């Protein structure tokens, strides 16, 4: 086992890895930018190396600085967390050339999964179902028509060089395809200076699930069930659960085995996640593979009872997997809420700043992975994830009830967060029924985050709002009084001080 491990990350995930190190008797080394010197991950580490100014392009993303920090402290391994350099094949190679161990897959596997085209090819070769269509550019509108006829309508035309929704056209019938094709092409040309367009079957109201897996260096793989990640806002996950409400034992086995085949085909090692779209008929399609630890890994840990970060470190140190496929038993249900520093009342605008007060829930079935503390000034330089609130309970319904309870105990004062938004989601009828797809949150927000009030709630609302107004007035008075009082007291204590000094003389 490693004696010392460098964590090339910040925030809650760096804290998560520090904790795993402590639990394994490995000394954790932190790196930090100038914005993060007093960050929680630094506070909890044994050693900490400054790697540059606040912008991540000059600190957390600079490969040479990370390697140098590892060399300087004598760390033998590097855990990249998620984001930053975690899926950078060049970084993986640099770590290897420096004679260090990366807690992650080999660069070759990262490369295969790093490009849409090669990942899709690998998935097809491994026999995993992919969204029907082609990633090759369409030569003509006739080819588009022919392919659309084969896959069946609706289809999606996508710019090959695309991203962010530009150069995309949904086509619901053969009548629309010719004009859509030329529109998509010209939009692609305008946006990316590349008019190539390809065609894919359009999955209506899809769900988004992903399989967690881990493999050791001897080529053994185990999948640890799926996570449901359909609750997204602008393609960013906000609520995840494990297991998915639509996946049964048999489907789990099929999707899981599919995921393992894809990973094996890519020569994958260590923890990774294979994402799938699921249509209304529960057909699943390979989407992509994330070649790193995921933000939402804790819900898999809660349900399977396995510690993914411990296992990652063990596998990277050359140990065999400590469990086999038969050892993976799903128990109960877990849900994660990503607490972002964003204002749900104001179009989710970022809200960095000082955390004046912090109150986190605890008790049965609650797990908090946090990168913040009371008095910490959340910097504006990095992404807005503050902490993750995860709950576990015997059933999905019990987990949702527990989530609502835990959210009510939770308060982050000083900045705006998504807590309020989650309180509304946890009480939403459709969410509680498990009836949702990747469009749920946009629809939910368009409806004004309204939850149905049980009867008699209107009276309670009026009273609550009166009590809230009274509290606001009390607080306004208190603040004003404190200002006066503190000055008065201080003058008095100043007198005392002078008094004491003169006595001493």
């Amino acid at each position: 086992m490693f004696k010392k491990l460098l964590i090339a990350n910040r925030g809650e995930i760096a804290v998560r890895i520090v904790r795993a190190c402590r639990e394994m008797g490995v000394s954790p080394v932190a790196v930090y930018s100038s914005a993060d010197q007093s960050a929680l991950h630094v506070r909890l580490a044994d050693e900490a190396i400054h790697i540059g100014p606040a912008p991540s392009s000059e600190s957390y993303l600079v490969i040479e600085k990370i390697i140098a920090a590892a060399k300087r402290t004598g760390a033998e391994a590097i855990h990249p967390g998620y984001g930053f350099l975690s899926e950078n094949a060049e970084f993986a190679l640099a770590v290897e050339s420096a004679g260090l161990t990366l807690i992650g897959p080999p660069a070759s596997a990262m490369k295969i999964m790093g490009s849409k085209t090669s990942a899709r090819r690998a998935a097809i070769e491994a026999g995993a179902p992919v969204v029907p269509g082609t990633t090759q550019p369409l030569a003509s509108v006739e080819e588009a028509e022919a392919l659309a006829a084969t896959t069946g309508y609706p289809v999606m035309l996508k710019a090959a060089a695309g991203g962010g929704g530009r150069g995309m056209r949904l086509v619901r019938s053969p009548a629309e395809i010719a004009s859509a094709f030329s529109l998509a092409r010209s939009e692609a040309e305008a946006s990316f200076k590349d008019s190539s367009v390809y065609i894919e079957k359009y999955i209506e109201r899809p769900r988004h699930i992903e399989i967690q897996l881990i493999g050791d260096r001897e080529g053994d793989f185990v999948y640890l069930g799926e996570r449901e990640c359909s609750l997204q806002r602008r393609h960013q996950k906000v609520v995840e659960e494990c297991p998915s409400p639509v996946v049964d034992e048999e489907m789990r086995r099929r999707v899981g085995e599919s995921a393992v085949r894809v990973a094996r085909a890519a020569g994958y090692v260590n923890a990774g996640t294979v994402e799938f779209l699921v249509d209304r008929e529960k057909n699943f399609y390979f989407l992509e593979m994330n070649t790193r630890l995921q933000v939402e890994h804790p819900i898999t840990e809660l349900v399977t009872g396995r510690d993914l970060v411990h296992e990652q470190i063990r596998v990277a140190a050359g140990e065999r997997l400590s469990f086999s496929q038969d050892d993976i038993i799903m128990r109960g249900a877990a849900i994660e809420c990503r607490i972002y520093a964003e204002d749900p009342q104001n179009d989710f605008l970022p809200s960095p700043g000082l955390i004046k007060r912090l109150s986190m829930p605890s008790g049965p079935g609650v797990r908090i992975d946090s990168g913040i503390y009371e008095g910490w000034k959340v910097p504006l330089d990095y992404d807005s994830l503050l902490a993750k609130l995860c709950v576990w309970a015997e059933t999905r319904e019990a987990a949702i009830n527990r989530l609502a309870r835990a959210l009510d105990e939770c308060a982050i004062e000083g900045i705006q967060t998504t807590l309020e938004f989650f309180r509304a989601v946890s009480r939403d009828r459709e969410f509680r029924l498990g009836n949702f797809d990747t469009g749920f949150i946009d629809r939910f927000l368009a409806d004004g985050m309204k939850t149905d009030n049980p009867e008699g709630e209107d009276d309670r609302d009026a009273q609550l709002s009166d009590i809230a107004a009274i509290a606001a007035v009390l607080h306004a008075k208190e603040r004003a009084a404190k200002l006066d009082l503190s000055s008065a007291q201080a003058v008095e204590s100043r007198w005392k001080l002078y008094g004491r000094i003169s006595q001493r003389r």
Partner: protein
Amino acid sequence: MKYEAEIDGRQISIELERRDRSVSAMVDGRRYELEVLCPERGLYLIFAGERVYEARAWSAESDLFTVKLRDRVFSARVIDRKHRRSVADHSDEGRQQLTAPMPGKVVRLLREQGDEVEAGQGVVVVEAMKMQNEIKSTKAGRIVEIRVAAGDTVNANQVLAVVE
């Protein structure tokens, strides 16, 4: 003492007397006899008959408060009658101040001083936490002043530009 307050957009008047732990309040004619403790800074434990409410209150701006009651979060503005006018002053008749809705960094200027802008046209782009935000003019006019430059760090509510 009498207060005017606005809570979640609703205007109310509050009369409130406090003697130590005892608080008598009249909210739009509804009477409350309360016992109030303050076990933590900004935390009010309010006893109303058998009921107990844990209210957390904090403020971003001087007269704007956030109050959390169990599962509910309220925005409350407590209005001092004397200053009412000055608070209302905020949006001037002819001039429009473009302010940063969040702390961040000015990424670039989309217009220059002296430019004419349409309503809804972007003037400055501010970035924070990997998200970019176009600060738009809400009315047509001329940019009489730009107070920031690319690269500047700005605070929430800081004036970035003035449109007339």
